[in-house]
């Protein structure tokens, strides 16, 4: 279980202190599929990074499976079973796709069959990619799909994906939603996905709406999703007209 209590995060900029997260509290039971959504700049990525330890909150606490992890390093959290798929993954000159998948799986060298299994789930053919370097020769969409494959290879108990759909073509996206659905159906994993995509939101058990650094809504998909749609068109005469 993931328990977040009164989490706040601020940045110091030219215009003084800006609150990115304001006293966010959230509990996610095990084996749930939770989508965090909301407007751009609402604090979603910061919340995900705070769970992974990539940013340190100003106040508040995070507990995972009963362990207080707020003061733990990224490495320690990873070893406790938390993984995080970057929205904009880094590239590595010299490291091959197979090397990165092996590191993710915690093995000296992952077999071709195992690599193939993870890459196929993100719509890539392993024969074409295993020996490729993770450098600029790969497109943004390819890097993103390999990033997601590393999280699958890691097979941790809490998988966080930050906008996995960003930069991915329509065909691969369809494959990806099937993969998420498969993980959900197999069970044993908590999925926390930041997304704006209806097809991903439709897979969720629960939806969390984060806006202006505050938790605005949280609840079962069937309850929250209609509210999001209503909120999208509210106040816009053109959109309201379209939906009538």
């Amino acid at each position, binding site marked *: 279980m993931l328990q977040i209590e009164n989490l706040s995060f601020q940045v110091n900029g030219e215009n003084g202190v800006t609150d990115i997260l304001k006293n966010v509290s959230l509990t996610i039971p095990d084996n749930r599929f939770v989508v965090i959504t909301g407007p751009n700049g609402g604090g979603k990525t910061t919340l995900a990074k705070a769970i992974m330890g990539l940013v340190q909150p100003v106040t508040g606490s995070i507990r995972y499976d009963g362990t207080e992890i707020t003061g733990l390093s990224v490495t320690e959290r990873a070893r406790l079973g938390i993984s995080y798929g970057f929205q904009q993954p880094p590239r590595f000159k*010299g490291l091959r796709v197979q090397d990165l998948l092996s590191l993710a799986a915690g093995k000296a060298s992952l077999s071709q069959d195992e690599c193939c299994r993870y890459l196929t789930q993100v719509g890539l053919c392993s024969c074409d990619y295993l020996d490729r370097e993770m450098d600029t020769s790969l497109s943004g969409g390819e890097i993103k799909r390999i990033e997601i494959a590393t999280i699958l290879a890691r097979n941790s108990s809490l998988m966080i994906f930050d906008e996995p759909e960003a930069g991915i073509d329509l065909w691969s996206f369809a494959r990806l939603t099937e993969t998420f659905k498969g993980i959900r159906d197999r069970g044993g994993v908590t999925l926390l996905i930041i997304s704006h995509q209806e097809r991903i939101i439709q897979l969720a058990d629960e939806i969390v709406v984060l806006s202006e650094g505050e938790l605005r809504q949280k609840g079962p998909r069937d309850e929250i999703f209609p509210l999001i749609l209503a909120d999208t068109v509210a106040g816009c005469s053109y959109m309201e007209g379209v939906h009538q």
Partner: protein
Amino acid sequence: MNKIDLKLLMKIAGMDGTPKGAFNIRKNSQLESRASSENIIITSKTDQPGIDIHIKPGTKKESVHIPVLITESGIDEMVYNDFFIGEDCDVDIVAGCGIHNDGPECSQHNGIHTFYVGKNSRVKYSEKHYGEGDGAGERIMNPQTVVHLEEGAFIELETVQIRGIDSTKRYTKIIAGKDAEAIITERLLTHGKQSAVSEMDVILDGEGANARIISRSVAQDSSQQTFYPRMIGNSKCFGHVQCDSIIMGDAKIRSIPEISANCADAQLVHEAAIGKIAGDQILKLMTLGLTEQEAEEKILDGFLK
């Protein structure tokens, strides 16, 4: 050969004892052992230190190992090795120098390797440098490699120096004839107060000649590196110079690639980059369960692999 010799041989040439095929092992400025094969003949030079290696035309899938070992402190040697490779060959040549210096005096190896690669021959040449030992004496290597490629000849030249060598000045010169091709891969890691200078002249003389220089280096601590890869196009040719360096600590790196075209049909490109390890690279590997130090090592290993 003792344990130190065997370790050095494994480090520089991947040799576990005596290799298959022709070889020449030089130790502390003396011939340690040698074997020629039917197609690869090794003979000592009579006018200066070093050897001549003659490879008969049509020799395929054979190798020759010529490692150099220095285990005594105070050795300063200059060696001339010439390779005469006939037409239509396909051979691997493994060189390299390992220095174990436990003494107070400097140990130094200077070597000039000259290759004459015959028409349509393919050569894979690898040269590794390795240094170790607890002595205060410096470990110095100054290799020169000169390659003459005849029509349609090809050489893949790989040089590796990872730690252990206090000072190196390397010079590589390639003269490529018609339709000849060269791929030069250089990998270097310096640390402590080490210094390394690598200078290259790749001259694309013949029509259809092409060459690629791929240099990757890591400078740690207060070490210093300087690169001067120069490529000259004298005909319709293609050349690409790529120098990438990772800088760490208080190190200093200078990278000065130069491309010169003396023909309107010469296509030459150079890229050079120096930068530190990106923070998000370290963080990504930490999210996979590696410590910060393990992440850094993996990134460097991959970069220099």
